[in-house]
């Protein structure tokens, strides 16, 4: 259980960090100001956005992980068919 929670936290932290760092990068905002810049500029807004990004990733990761594990428990082949179909989209 601890290992699963730790993996979720690590994944969420890494996901939030990548999105946040790319968005606040001065170079990226200059290069493509229409896409980058969703994170606002005050310290409070930046911290809150990072925390919410992390929570989003953590909840999303847990839901999806449990869903995939349940599917595997039902049938391995069904899982691969569903994931393959999703990938093809």
């Amino acid at each position: 259980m601890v290992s699963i929670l730790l993996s979720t936290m690590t994944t969420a932290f890494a996901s939030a960090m990548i999105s946040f760092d790319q968005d606040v990068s001065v170079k990226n905002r200059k290069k493509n100001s229409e896409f980058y810049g969703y994170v606002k500029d005050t310290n409070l807004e930046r911290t809150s956005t990072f925390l919410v990004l992390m929570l989003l990733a953590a909840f999303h990761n847990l839901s999806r992980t449990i869903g995939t594990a349940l599917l595997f428990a039902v049938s391995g082949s069904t899982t691969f068919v569903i994931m393959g179909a999703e990938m093809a989209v």
Partner: protein
Amino acid sequence: MLRNDFVVWIPSLEGILKYIAAIIVHVVVKVLVDFTGLIQCRGAKLMGGSLFTFSTVLGQILPFVALSLYDASTNAMNAALIILACCWGVSVVVFFGLIDRDKWWTFYGTITGAQATIHTFRSSDNPAIKMNAIFTNHSSFTESIKDEVIAYMRDNWAEWERTQPAWFTPKFIASVGDEFIPGRALQQLNEAAIEAGVGARRRREIITLSSMKEVVITLTTVDTMTDVYMIYLYKENGLHSNANTMIAMISTNVAIQLLTVLAVNKKKGWRKVLKEGLITLLFIRPFVDAWRVHNKHKDSETTTDPLTEMVMNKGIELATESIPGCVLQCYVLLLNPSLGSSR
């Protein structure tokens, strides 16, 4: 493929390699979006806004479909999934409340990578941004406006040669194809190269085949340690195939990171490549990457900057080890609930 958006942005990739790279990038991006909702992947050159949103919503529906198929489902499981989905929904609402409203469209836009690149070229007045859009993306993205780009460069090249803006570097010139450089300037470049004893002008080779960070780096290493412990636990309990799957995930992560080491350090000698390889093999890559980003480490012999290298390594680790490892552990826990109390 239907929208002609299969080939990825990476410039200089040609032949079969551009399709292999496209498959790898699309699979990694899909895994990252499905399992982490990585916001950065909504970019037109990765997944695109509308597909990103569709995938994340689908990711919330899937657990309920899976639970309905699962024979041993309980009310507690159903309640747990509902709570998780509600927490995710609240986070989404708070997130959209916090971010800049002008960027909401990036979550439902249908623009492709090529369309975004052409839009950047046409809408910007800054030559650096225009040239960056054209020459840091795959040539197929801008094939349809090639004549427009050639005309723009013909009109401005002499001015750039005279004023030498910061972005007009030898590296940039090397990335520009001969057909984009006005005839006289191209002749001068080739003559200069011959005088310097080089056959022709230098060209980019075509390839045919913060403090928060320290916290996540520590977590990453602890995660690897718990994964190793889980392998031991699975072996102890006779779950050899699960333990071997875990080993395969860690090995795949290391193998792909080693390939990245080769690509990033291809200009270096074998000793330096060996040193970088050992850093990956000894699982200290996260620390080294974070240290280099933190200290703004500069190395002219590497093909990427430290931040890009760290993001690549993190992406590989998430897609090959963290996410599948987490799914495997949940799966084993579902079938062997007694293991949950062991750790």
